């Protein structure tokens, strides 16, 4: 059981900064997802935790102890590789026993533990098969089992589902989640797939361009994105962001999107909006939270996508685009028509157009 603390962690490769000033504490037993597009620095972070890379700056602490100088073999970290790195020239049993043998565990003990883990992971029927040619979900279980058998206090998983097709991914996600329940270690999970992160993680750290943007529970991240990147990255489709400017009418601030109309700023954000001096602002709302309305914004309906339970309406007007996701029982607007809609107060978010940062709301 370990707590992982990253302090001002940085990594540069020559002129290229892969990671800068990463500060993150992962609690003991927590399932933390590092989420971001490729090249965001998440794998770099993970590899530094495992010890495959040496940080250029900062510290990595396991339970308060700096492990930067501890070689990776001694960190007690379990690691599941993107393609599992199963020793395909060995049998399932040899794979499971590999770490124990390396540590010089007595043979009897190894047999016992391997048997126990195999049963736990439902691998006991195939212990003596060669690992080459096993199916992906078995390989995944084997990869986890191979690390878990050493009872590492920290478990790192590097995009373990990226090689799996979509249909299977759902099955694997739940399997992984339940396995985490079994082992109950601190887990760091690297992914570029927000769905994986949202469904499995206790908390998500969203990263981009070597920077940590936001850390929070899946719901926090979804509901209160710290900036426009997170807002657009999380959700499928991501949040609609439109450029507008403040208009004040009788002490109440609203946002006018030029040519489209005006949306009211919810009361929680009124204060922040008033504090902001510059008139330009970005207004955001999730496509799921769009409703047809008499007033609000009017946009041109590009085309209408019906996908089972939902209908996605693609909207466009004078260079701005937006999407609306309607339940399938709602009547969607006709393609080619103009459609007026608004979003509820709870759905509205405001972002500073220069920094991209969200304006913080206040309870009124």
């Amino acid at each position, binding site marked *: 059981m370990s707590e992982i603390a990253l302090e001002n962690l940085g990594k540069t490769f020559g002129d290229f900064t892969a990671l800068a000033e990463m500060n993150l504490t992962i609690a003991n037993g927590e399932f933390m997802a590092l989420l971001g597009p490729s090249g965001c620095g998440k794998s770099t972070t993970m590899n530094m935790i495992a010890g*495959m890379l*040496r940080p250029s700056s900062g510290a990595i602490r396991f339970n308060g102890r700096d492990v930067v100088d501890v070689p990776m073999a001694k960190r007690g970290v379990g690691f599941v590789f993107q393609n599992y790195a199963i020793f395909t020239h060995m049998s399932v049993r040899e794979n499971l026993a590999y770490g124990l043998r390396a540590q010089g565990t007595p043979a009897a003990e190894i047999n016992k533990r391997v048997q126990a883990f195999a049963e736990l992971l439902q691998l006991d029927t195939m212990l003596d098969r060669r690992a080459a040619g096993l199916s992906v979900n078995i390989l995944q279980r084997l990869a986890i089992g191979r690390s878990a058998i050493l009872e590492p206090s920290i478990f790192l998983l590097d995009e373990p589902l990226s090689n799996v097709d979509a249909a299977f991914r759902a099955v694997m996600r739940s399997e992984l989640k339940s396995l985490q329940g079994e082992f109950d270690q601190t887990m760091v999970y690297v992914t570029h797939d927000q769905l994986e992160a949202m469904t499995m993680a206790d908390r998500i750290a969203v990263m981009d361009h070597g920077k940590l943007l936001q850390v929070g529970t899946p719901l926090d991240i979804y509901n209160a994105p710290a900036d426009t990147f997170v807002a657009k990255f999380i959700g499928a489709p991501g949040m609609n962001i439109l450029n507008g400017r403040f208009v004040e009418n009788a002490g109440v601030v609203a946002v006018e999107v030029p040519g489209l109309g005006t949306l009211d700023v919810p009361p929680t954000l009124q204060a922040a909006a008033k504090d902001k001096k510059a008139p330009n602002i970005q207004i955001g709302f999730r496509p799921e939270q769009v409703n047809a309305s008499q007033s609000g914004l009017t946009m041109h309906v590009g085309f209408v996508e019906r996908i089972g339970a939902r209908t996605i309406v693609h909207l466009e007007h004078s260079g701005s685009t937006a999407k609306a996701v309607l339940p399938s029982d709602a009547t969607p607007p006709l393609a080619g028509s103009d459609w007026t809609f608004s979003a509820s107060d709870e759905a509205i978010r405001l972002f500073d157009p220069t920094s991209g940062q969200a304006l913080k709301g206040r309870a009124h």
Partner: protein
Amino acid sequence: MQRSIPFEIFRYAVILGIVAVSLVPTLWMISMAFKPIAEWSAAGADLTWWPRNPTLDNFRFIFGQSSTDLIVALERTAGRPIFASLLTATCGTLIAMTAGTSAAYGLSRFGQGGNLPLALIQLRLFPPMAVMIPVMIMWSFLGLIDNWFGLSLIYGIVTLPFAFWLMKTFFDDMPREIEDAALVEGCTRWRVFVRITLPMMRPALASSALFVFILNWSDYLIALLLTTRDWATIPVYMASLSSSMTGQLYGAKAALGVIAAVPPIIMGIAIQKHLVRGLTFGALKE
């Protein structure tokens, strides 16, 4: 990966040690090539490691200029043998690569020629010396003795196995999707092979060709038996570099050796990055 200082020291010590030892014969050759005759001797007392009076005479000599020290006049200069080596090694490489590449493709994609792998292994395994009698008789019958094509042909045949194995490896590794896409667009298989596959295989062709070229370029035995005058290659010609005046013309031999090392080295540098990949013989395909 983290490295320890002692390991680095160990690494450099071992590598530099081996490099130093492996360079001795090469350096000896280079040094010989620039030594005047008085310094050639490898006989004891006045062994010369490095030319005390470096000279280009050895190079001038093999290209037909009498030099002050080597009063021996050459009947044949090195020009023709160098040309013969270049031509026959190149044509031999072309023959091996053409036949080997197309056969490798035929087997890899269409499953034709299943007997070839074994036949070609046996061909390579068999000492050429043991078949030279019938080969000499055949070549003579066909008028191919001391003929550039005759030598190229036998080179093409004896190196065919390497061309075939290497190219088969690459074809087996090459994703089919691209070819399939072209097929769907209505290209014929032949067109696909010539227009799509081969251009994609350019690096593979280059590294295989280098390897085959080096094998042909190195040959001594076959050229010794199948040439007489016009197409004697560098190694065969080298044997004639001795004289009653001075004994073996080691300096001249070394100079020719230095020249002979140039083509493979240039080609090696040109395709250095493919060379390693090219030599895996497909053994690493998962």
